[in-house]
């Protein structure tokens, strides 16, 4: 065994596929939060990392919630995926780091997730940007006329 290649690589599935049985209680929590959203307009969110979830739990949750109409990607220092599930008002939000690892994952029960909305401060910045762009455009236009 003179080189690294001499060491055999055996690929094994070391992850025990098991369930903590946490999918069902979670779905009931979503039900309560959705009910609350309709009644009071108050949004809710569940941090998927706060619960011990194993592969089976995860698959079950995904299967029951299903795929919905909206799929959005936010690009803010790494991508964030925002998808509405087949249950309207229930969103699956996954934040990725710039190296594509998952930073955080939430089920949000809301009409529109916060991350999709534009912050007033950003909007102001946008307005400033727009104005400065308009300014330079009109200057350019003027310049062209001048020229």
């Amino acid at each position, binding site marked *: 065994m003179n080189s690294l290649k001499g060491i055999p690589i*055996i690929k*094994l599935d*070391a*992850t*025990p596929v*098991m369930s903590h049985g946490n999918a069902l209680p979670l779905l009931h929590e979503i039900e309560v939060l959705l009910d609350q959203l309709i009644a009071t307009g108050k*949004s*809710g*969110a*569940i*941090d998927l*990392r*706060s619960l*011990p979830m*194993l592969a089976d739990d995860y698959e079950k949750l995904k299967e029951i919630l299903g795929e919905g109409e909206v799929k959005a990607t*936010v690009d*803010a*220092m*790494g991508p*964030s995926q925002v998808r509405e599930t087949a249950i309207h008002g229930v969103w699956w939000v996954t*934040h990725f*780091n*710039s*190296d594509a*690892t*998952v*930073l*955080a*994952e*939430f089920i*949000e029960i809301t009409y529109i997730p*916060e*991350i999709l909305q534009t*912050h007033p*401060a*950003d909007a102001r*910045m946008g307005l400033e940007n727009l104005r400065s762009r308009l300014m330079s455009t009109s200057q350019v236009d003027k310049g062209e006329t001048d020229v």
Partner: protein
Amino acid sequence: MSDDKTLAETLAQRGISRRSFLKFCASIASLMAMPPAMAVEMAEKLAAARRQSVVYLSFQECTGCLESLTRSHSPKLEDLIFDAISLDYQETLVACAGHFAEHILKEAIEKNDGKFILMVDGSIPLKDGGIYSTIAGRTNLDILEWVAPHAAAVIAVGSCAAFGGIPKANPNPTGAVAVSDIIKDKPIINVPGCPPIPVVITGVIAHYLTMGTIPDLDELGRPKVFFGDSIHDRCYRRPFYDQGKFAKSFDDEGARNGWCLFELGCKGPTTHNACATTKWNGGVSFPIESGHGCLGCSEPDFWDAGSFYTALSAPTKDVANWAAIGVAAGAAIGVAAGIANRSTKTETKRTRKPLTVDDLKGKPKS
């Protein structure tokens, strides 16, 4: 290096939107087990915060902690925190050297007196007047006692600063102690680990910036959110422990099947840290996932807690020989006690008068 602009204003100039703040705070909130709804509020506060001055002192250490904190392959979201702080002094990173560097430290302390966060890595040697680690002719103890009173809070980074770490390992030749053994009147947040998980440090600073407070600490001064659970509690191999399926050696069937490493000396059950959830190297893995038991590096005196390869249920010291000594000593004392018993009997037999029929006639003498 400080300015009056808010963080949001500074970063906006670099095209970083408020969505990044929200995303950052959402991931910090998730990391620190705060309610997801807090993320929005935290984002607002962080955006409105001024840059935080940080002074970073290194004592008896190996620079592994700093490596852990600064080494990343690509800029990541958590690096946002470096934009949120102003690292006013760090010996290894500071551009200048000698008197200039010392001057910068002095200036940083004076400028943000009572407001800066002091980060310390490495332990402080006390033996022989602390001469075993000095910087610019001053002992570590001297420097710490000078700087710490001016700080708002202290973060002890790594097991050496938090608990004394490897320099303190038996026989502790330099008389190394932890920061908390010296500084008693400042809030100290211990972030132990050898090295500590970088995102934990990020989280602590973010917490301070957004909430203005330090997080809840356990009895060892560690943030509960990261050190509340044991590695064992969050280990993906836990089901095997519960089933009693253990790897018996590093290359047996059990090891290949990813069974529990308890019998190979894993200290996961007694080690409190977030490795099993945050993982290392950008979430690639953590020691147990790589097939090796946890060493327990975020616990005090982990270096002296018995062999890394001795199961937790096994003694850390030699018991069998002591048991043998006990048996030998017990045999010796027991024989002596037996001889004493025999002499009690012999003596009694010799002195007692045998009962006669006349004794039955008389009245008992009291």
